[in-house]
């Protein structure tokens, strides 16, 4: 039996950053919004006893319960796709706040080059810089168009930073000053300056000082507690949806959160959608929530999956190149180097987004004429707070257990630093998302299937940027430096990043994209799909700054659509 509820203006599926932004903006504009979230309600009071590495960082307390739903994975089409049975490579969010509850808070603006990557690469390096298998395309929007929305997101979160990146001119000041320049960061600063690069403080959503955002929400000053990445903040000092946009939405009186509501279908009729069907995860009861506008904000994976199971749009086919849904799935390439030092350092102190960066090897900030790859990555040192279960640094020739291991891993715990890049990831025709034919979730719906492997472009980028990281680490005075080994096949076991992108990409034409630049679906004008799934490739940064900007612009589109209807482009 399905219960049909009364219609609302907007239903939002998933309550992380994207769902929270859409809900807040629409509710502020007077629209009646319901937010459906499969996970639990949660907030700062739930984080008071959270300095527990085992429960939160190792056993993934705040993240997706895979016994209910996961994805399947294979490296190429010849392999059979098998379920990701445990979390590893990326940590999917679940519960109010989504992944934004336990993110680090590195918050970036993608470069102008990113949004017009095809045009600008072709113009500078000719049309054959990468082979045709790399499905590069422009995003259907420019940096200039997106710039005001970047700033809106930065103001909402109170971003702490300094305007010293020589490669990106900002019109607007950072809402709060940068975080503390610790001795560890200063080592990096000096070394990179001596090498002729331009270091600057990493823009951080762990705030340097307390701040009130334009919606009136207060965010406190970061206490550098060292339990940040994978944890919620007990101080309310890490900007996240549950302390900013969600309370903003609630205050309007126009927003209702409905947790333990797992959406299983978007209902389509003709060239519009009419609402969503969801299951109460406790009672098993089914409901239909009709709405004038449906917004998918359930992250890369489920945004794609919900479109696929609801038969909205054409599935991408790697044989023919036809179809757009599932296309251009990308990830993040992680070059880097580790340095082993003589002196002990306070490596266990830190904050999720405490770091310093150079962008000399990001985007097209350096010449690629003689290189066999495009783009690059931001190179950073971060001091996020080393913790003892996950951090047992040893050199490659040290045994991984026994007396020598114990001695070395203890010795190195406070004597090891790493420099890492968020390397860009270019789309390839063989990397895509689809529905799995075999495995199902707890609601009997097929799992999403990921076909993904690293490419030649990725490997070349990795080697090149790793050399730069190694050079810097040597300059920082490490006694021994180990470069990250060249990448081979993608594996889902070890944590890399939760920077999955693509699958529901944006663009200027329905021929090559799923949504337009307002993230409005080309095939259903009252359906919006919001998240890093919209990225046509992944840039050399963490994604959420750009996701936030796109979400604010989409919210504006939704509000306009509610008045006028029709296509927004």
């Amino acid at each position, binding site marked *: 039996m399905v219960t049909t509820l009364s219609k609302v203006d907007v239903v939002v599926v998933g309550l992380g950053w994207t769902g929270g932004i859409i809900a807040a903006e629409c509710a502020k504009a007077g629209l009646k919004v319901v937010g459906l979230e499969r996970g639990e309600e949660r907030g700062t009071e739930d984080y008071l006893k959270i300095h527990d590495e085992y429960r939160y960082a190792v056993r993934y307390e705040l993240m997706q319960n895979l016994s209910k739903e996961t994805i399947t994975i294979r490296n190429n089409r010849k392999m059979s796709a098998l379920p990701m049975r445990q979390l590893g490579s990326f940590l999917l969010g679940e519960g109010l706040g989504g992944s934004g509850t336990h993110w680090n808070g590195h918050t970036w603006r993608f470069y102008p080059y990113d949004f017009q990557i095809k045009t600008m690469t072709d113009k500078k390096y000719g049309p054959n810089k990468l082979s045709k298998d790399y499905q590069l395309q422009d995003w259907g929007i420019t940096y200039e168009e997106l710039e005001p929305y970047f700033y809106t997101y930065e103001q909402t979160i109170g971003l702490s930073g300094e305007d010293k990146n020589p490669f990106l001119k900002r019109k607007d000041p950072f809402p709060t000053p940068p975080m503390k320049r610790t001795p560890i960061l200063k080592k990096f600063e000096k070394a990179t300056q001596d090498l002729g690069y331009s270091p600057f403080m990493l823009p951080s959503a762990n705030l340097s000082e307390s701040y009130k955002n334009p919606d009136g929400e207060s965010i406190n000053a970061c206490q550098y507690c060292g339990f940040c990445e994978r944890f919620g903040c007990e101080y309310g000092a890490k900007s996240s949806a549950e302390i900013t946009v969600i309370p903003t939405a609630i205050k309007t009186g126009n927003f209702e959160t409905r947790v333990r509501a797992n959406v299983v279908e978007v209902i389509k009729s003709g060239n519009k959608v009419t609402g969503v069907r969801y299951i109460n995860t406790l009672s098993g009861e089914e409901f239909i929530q009709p709405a004038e506008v449906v917004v998918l904000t359930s992250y890369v994976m489920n945004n794609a999956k919900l479109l696929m199971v609801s038969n909205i749009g054409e599935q991408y086919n790697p044989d023919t190149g036809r179809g757009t849904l599932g296309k251009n799935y990308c990830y993040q390439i992680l070059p880097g180097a580790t340095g082993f030092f003589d002196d002990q350092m306070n490596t266990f102190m*830190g904050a999720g987004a405490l770091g310093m960066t150079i962008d000399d090897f990001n985007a097209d900030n350096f010449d690629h004429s003689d290189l066999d790859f495009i783009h690059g990555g931001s190179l950073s040192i971060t001091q996020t707070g080393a913790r003892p279960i996950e951090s047992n640094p040893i050199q490659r020739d040290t045994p991984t257990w026994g007396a020598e291991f114990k001695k070395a891993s203890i010795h190195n715990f406070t004597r090891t630093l790493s420099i890492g890049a968020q390397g860009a990831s270019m789309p390839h025709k063989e990397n895509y998302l689809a529905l799995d034919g075999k495995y199902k979730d707890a609601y009997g719906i097929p799992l999403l299937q990921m076909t993904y492997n690293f490419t030649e472009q990725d490997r070349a980028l990795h080697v090149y940027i790793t050399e730069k990281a190694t050079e810097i680490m040597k300059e920082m005075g490490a006694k021994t430096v180990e470069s990250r080994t060249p990448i081979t096949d993608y594996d889902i076991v070890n944590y890399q990043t939760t920077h999955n992108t693509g699958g529901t990409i944006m663009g200027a034409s329905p021929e090559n994209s799923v949504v337009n630049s307002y993230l409005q679906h080309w095939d259903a004008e009252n359906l919006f799909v919001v998240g890093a799934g919209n990225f046509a490739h992944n840039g050399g940064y963490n994604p959420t700054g750009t996701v936030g900007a796109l979400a604010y612009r989409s919210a504006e589109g939704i509000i306009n659509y509610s008045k006028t209807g029709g296509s927004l482009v």
Partner: protein
Amino acid sequence: MEENKKNISRRDFLKTSGVATGALIGGGLIGGLVGYNINKNDSPTNKIAGTDEHSTQTDQGWQFFRNYREFDIIANATERIYPEDDQGPGAIGLGVPYFIDSQLAGQYGSNSKEYMHGPFEVGAPTQGYQSRLTRAEIFRQGIEMLDAEATKRFDKGFSKIEGAQMDEILTAFQKDEIKMAGVTSTFFFRLLRTATLEGAYSDPMYKGNVNMDGWRMKGFPGHQMAYINEIENEKFQKIEPQSLGGMH
């Protein structure tokens, strides 16, 4: 017999274990320990592996293990992975076997937050865990196989062989030279190694990291409210660790 076993505190037990380890590199340590007659005048080497005397004073009870044979095998194996040394206690002294015991009895052991539906296929290493077995089942089988392998190679159970012999067997597991059902021995070894480190370094409320000695050795202060006042200091800060249970 019971009267021989004096009451000892947890700290004493640890100290005692230190004596024992120093003296018995490789002998079935926990077998020795739990059967160790606490009378300080006794030479620890008198009572090593193989005894079925067990001091209930130091026992915390088991949620998962069924007998001393299982418990001792895990204790000895984890101690080889993370041995006591001049820096401080090893896995046994840190309570790692009890940590593993309670973890195997709970959500970790039953993989209850993981996707455990079939069909099960072997899969490529890049596809991660594909076993039909839960961690509890893998551990139970792994323990049996450790013992069987010791018996095969050395004619004695795992807890009764020398340390170097234990290492040889653990290495064979690590290198996937032992055939296990439904899982590779490499996978079991990795699980065991990881669980050992988890037990050594998690908050003491999980029964490992006894007295926060794992943290102390590593220079990790555990749960601190804030480092805002120390983080700019050039000097390394030695901070007395604090556990969540010790929170005010």
